[in-house]
C-alpha cells in the first residue's frame, strides 16, 4: 500500500488515538511522498542552520589571523584536517544551495515562478548548480595544490 493510500486512515488514527482532545493538525512529513520541492524546502533550513556554524568558523579564522601566526596555524591545521576538509566541502555546497534557493524564494516573494513546471524546474536548477559549483570550487583547490 502506498503512502497516499494510507493517508486518510493515518489521519483518523492521529485524531482518535494519538491526540483525541487536540484540535485538527495538518498532516506531518511521514505521510507525504518525497518530492524535490519539499527536499529543497527542508534543505534550505538545514543548510541555513549549518551555515550559521560556518560563520563561527569564519570568526575563528579572522580572530586567529588577527592574533598571530601560531593561532593562525592552529586554525589552518583544522581546515586542512580530514574532518576540516569534509566540513568545508559541506559548507561550499550548503552556501550555494542556500544562495540559489534563496534567489528562488526572492522570485516567489515577487510573485513569480509559481507555475508547477516552473517550481519543479527551478528546484532541479538549484540542485545542479549547487553540485556543479562545489565541484568547480574543489577542483580549483586541488589544481592549486590542495589546502595546506
Amino acid at each position, binding site marked *: 500500500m502506498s503512502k497516499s493510500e494510507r493517508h486518510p486512515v493515518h489521519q483518523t488514527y492521529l485524531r482518535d488515538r494519538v491526540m483525541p482532545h487536540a484540535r485538527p493538525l495538518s498532516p506531518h512529513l511521514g505521510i507525504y511522498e518525497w518530492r524535490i520541492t519539499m527536499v529543497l524546502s527542508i534543505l534550505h*533550513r538545514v543548510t*541555513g*542552520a549549518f*551555515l*550559521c556554524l560556518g*560563520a*563561527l568558523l*569564519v*570568526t575563528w579564522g*579572522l*580572530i586567529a*589571523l*588577527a*592574533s*598571530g*601566526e601560531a593561532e*593562525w*596555524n592552529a586554525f*589552518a591545521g583544522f*581546515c*586542512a584536517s580530514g574532518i576540516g576538509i569534509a566540513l568545508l566541502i559541506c559548507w*561550499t555546497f550548503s*552556501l550555494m544551495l542556500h*544562495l540559489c534557493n*534563496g*534567489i528562488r*524564494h*526572492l522570485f516567489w*516573494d515577487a510573485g513569480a515562478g509559481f507555475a508547477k513546471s516552473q517550481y519543479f524546474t527551478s528546484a532541479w536548477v538549484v540542485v545542479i548548480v549547487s553540485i556543479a559549483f562545489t565541484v568547480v*570550487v574543489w577542483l*580549483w*583547490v586541488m589544481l*592549486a*595544490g*590542495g*589546502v*595546506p
Partner: protein
Amino acid sequence: MSAAPNGAGPHDMRTPLARVRALGSAKSGASGWWIERLSGAALIPLSLWFVWLVLRLPHLDFAAAHVLVGNVINAGLLILFTAISFWHGALGLQVVIEDYVHTRWIELTLLIAVKFLAVLGAVACALAVLRIWLGTY
C-alpha cells in the same frame, strides 16, 4: 515610534496600500521579513566574493592571508559580509526556533542567546578585521 498601528514604524517597508489594508504582521514582523530578504539579497554578491577571496588562499599561508585581509577593500567587504551574515543568520535561526521549540522558556532563552551570539560574532569579526587592517597584531 509611539503606538504605531499595525507595526508601522520608520523601518516599515510595506506599501501604503498594504498598511492601510492592515496586511502583514500585527506587530513588527513585517520589518523582520523585509530585513531577512534584503540581507539575503546583499549576501548573494558578498558570499560569492567571499568564496573568491578564500580561493586565493589555497595554501592557507599566514603572510598571504594578512596581505589579502589587509587590503582596504577586502577588509571593508569582509566586515560587511560577516555583519550581514550574522544578522541574516540570527533572523533565520529565530524562525526555526519559533517553529520547532514549543516550551516557552526554552524558546525565549534560545531566541535571546541567538541574538547575543550574533552581535558578539559580528563585533568580534569586525574588530579582528580592523586589527589586521591596521597591522597591530
